[in-house]
């Protein structure tokens, strides 16, 4: 496990506003500090660069996501954390003019490359989005959609079982078991998001990517999703982008701090929030910008 050296950075007196502004806007070499790599990596990313046309959104990011681990990605708006997350199941392919460089692999299988079929990849790496996006179908069909297109269930009974299990794991079964044929769009926001999680786990992925899954939800619904993330960790590897540092602290084992498209610090969540190595991380988590 390599440890990178602490970046000197501009010597900013804390509280000095212009110096702080310099710190925030720094484009100087940010080298990742902390421990971005781990031994039992599910996802390995090395020297990832992402471009939108001419603009570079991600600069030379290397990171491992360990098996059955929850890794939180935090950072100010526009720092590239969502872009980075979307590289992991190639959702960026849908954006015209987006180009991804670097080595990314899932259990040793490359994610990018001419020979890689994106369909099975996305079945292995599921995704939950910021806004709940259930299909305008029944609750049952929403969950059964993935198993159907991947031919996972051959008989109706099997499909029923998958739907029930997925809804149970997402903690939604008791609320919807009597109205599986009602439209998924009729549920409340929190229920819709749990439906989307159920839909994602119905295809038995290995990794689940979550892009600010709670930002559209109220605190109670958020708490339920957070509990759920903790339970899901037993079976899945999870990467979550969040704006809430409390959420990152509550649900993750490791935290990665992004700043202006660069990965600044990766450490155990506890270390990041109690004893951050990099001054940018410290400035962010103590709320001096962001």
């Amino acid at each position: 496990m390599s440890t990178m050296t602490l970046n000197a950075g501009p010597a900013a007196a804390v509280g000095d506003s212009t110096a702080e502004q310099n710190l925030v806007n720094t484009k100087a070499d940010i080298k990742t500090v902390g421990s971005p790599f781990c031994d039992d990596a599910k996802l390995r990313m090395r020297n990832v660069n992402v471009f939108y046309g001419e603009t570079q959104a991600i600069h030379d990011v290397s990171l491992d996501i360990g098996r059955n681990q929850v890794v939180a990605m935090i950072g100010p708006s526009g720092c590239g954390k969502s872009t980075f997350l979307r590289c992991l199941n190639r959702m960026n392919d849908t954006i015209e003019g987006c180009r991804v460089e670097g080595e990314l692999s899932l259990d040793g299988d490359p994610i990018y490359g001419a020979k890689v079929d994106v369909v099975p990849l996305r079945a292995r790496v599921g995704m939950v989005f910021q806004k709940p996006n259930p299909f305008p179908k029944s609750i049952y069909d929403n969950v059964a959609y993935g198993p159907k297109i991947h031919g996972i269930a051959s008989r109706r009974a099997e499909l029923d079982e998958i739907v029930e299990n997925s809804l149970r794991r997402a903690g939604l079964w008791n609320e919807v078991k009597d109205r599986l044929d009602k439209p998924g769009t009729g549920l409340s926001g929190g229920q819709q998001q749990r439906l989307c999680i159920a839909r994602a786990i119905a295809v038995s992925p290995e990794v689940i990517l979550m892009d600010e899954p709670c930002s559209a939800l109220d605190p109670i619904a958020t708490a339920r999703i957070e509990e759920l993330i903790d339970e899901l960790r037993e079976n899945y590897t999870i990467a979550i982008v969040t704006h809430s540092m409390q959420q990152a602290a509550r649900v993750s084992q490791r935290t990665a701090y992004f700043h202006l498209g660069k990965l600044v610090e990766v450490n155990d969540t506890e270390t990041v929030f109690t004893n951050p190595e990099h001054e940018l991380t410290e400035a962010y988590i103590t709320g001096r910008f962001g």
Partner: protein
Amino acid sequence: MQTPTLFALLLLLILVAYGTGFSRAIGAARSRGGIRSLASLPSYYGVHTALWCGLPALVILGVWLAFDDAIIRALVLGGVADRPETLSGQNLLYAQIQNLAAGSLVGESTPQLAAAAAHLNSLRQSGQWLQTALILILAVGLGAYALMRVTPELRAREKVEKVLRVILLMCACAAIFTTVGILMSVLFESLRFFQAVPVTEFLFGLHWSPQMAMRADQVGSSGAFGAVPLFTGTLMVSAIAMFVAVPVGLMSAIYLAEYASNRVRAFAKPLIEILAGVPTVVYGFFAALTVAPFIRDLAQSVGLEASSESALAAGLVMGVMIIPFISSLSDDVINAVPQSLRDGALGLGSTKSETVRKVVIPAALPGIVGGVLLAVSRAIGETMIVVMAAGLAANLTANPLESVTTVTVQIVTLLVGDQEFDSPKTLAAFALGLMLFISTLILNFIALHVVKKYREQYD
């Protein structure tokens, strides 16, 4: 003063009223400490004054112009001692008087006519004076009254907006009243038709031959008004058209919305919409001169009997005409499906085509159905192509290679040329029009309902 001059003067007065109202409001504000002390913005005071000045005068002017001629005519004819009893006689007499008054009467003139013409001229002149005086007094008087009322307390904005609301309401009503007017005119003529021909014969009769005997001894002219062949013809042509237009239009919409790159889309979409700009007469040429002979030759080469005017030719070309209609509407609806649904489907490992087939199209389906129903009403109402390519023979047939005729074509042929308006032959056109109106109305109603339901889902 002539009416156009008066009208121009009135417009000028309105402008002046606006300007003075505006500056008076500013003046009033200045003594009170700025525009904020006014109940409304100065421009509202201007509009308020202008409305008082112009609106009543314009309304009176309109009413005057509407009844002017009728009143003068009654007065002139009332002054003539031995006027004829019949309406046509009176019309003739009045026309003579008018010509004499204008100095262009050919033929002899009697002292009585000359007196009436002089009467007409004097009435017109005094009417003109009266009109000018009334309008100007009204405009200036009410304008001045409104100007006096410009005080910081006057809630000009509320009053102006109330008037605007009424004007908007009247514009909306214009469309509704036109529809009602059209319906009424068609309805009353249809009722006259149904007095001559029973409704059941019209709706269920299988034979259409609307030739009425004009003289008792005329041969070969039985009137048969069974509209079933027309409706089956309409249905067949429309069905062929939709059979062409729906798949092609829908698939081109899917291509444009989901697969085409921005560059292709920017280039292809206007090209497809050019099709919508081709006049239907031109489509008619194309159908009659190119497609119909081609279909006939093709059918004969495989040993089928084909007429040179066929339902197939008209339907195919009509389908092509409707393609841009469907593709443009569906394209909008498909684009309105939120990107998050596509992301959700792709994120589960759907292929592009699975995403389109299983998520995007089902989500857009209500809107697409609405668009298709609107297109069906267009196909049913389309006339020109069918006149030129499908023929006039009212055959009751299910063979698309035969010539058929449609409701709209029959309406055209029934009303073209010299017609008497008391024969069932002519009146039949109105009954057909009524049926057409009702069926497209129902279709549009369903279409709008479906589209509305779709909107509720995503807003």
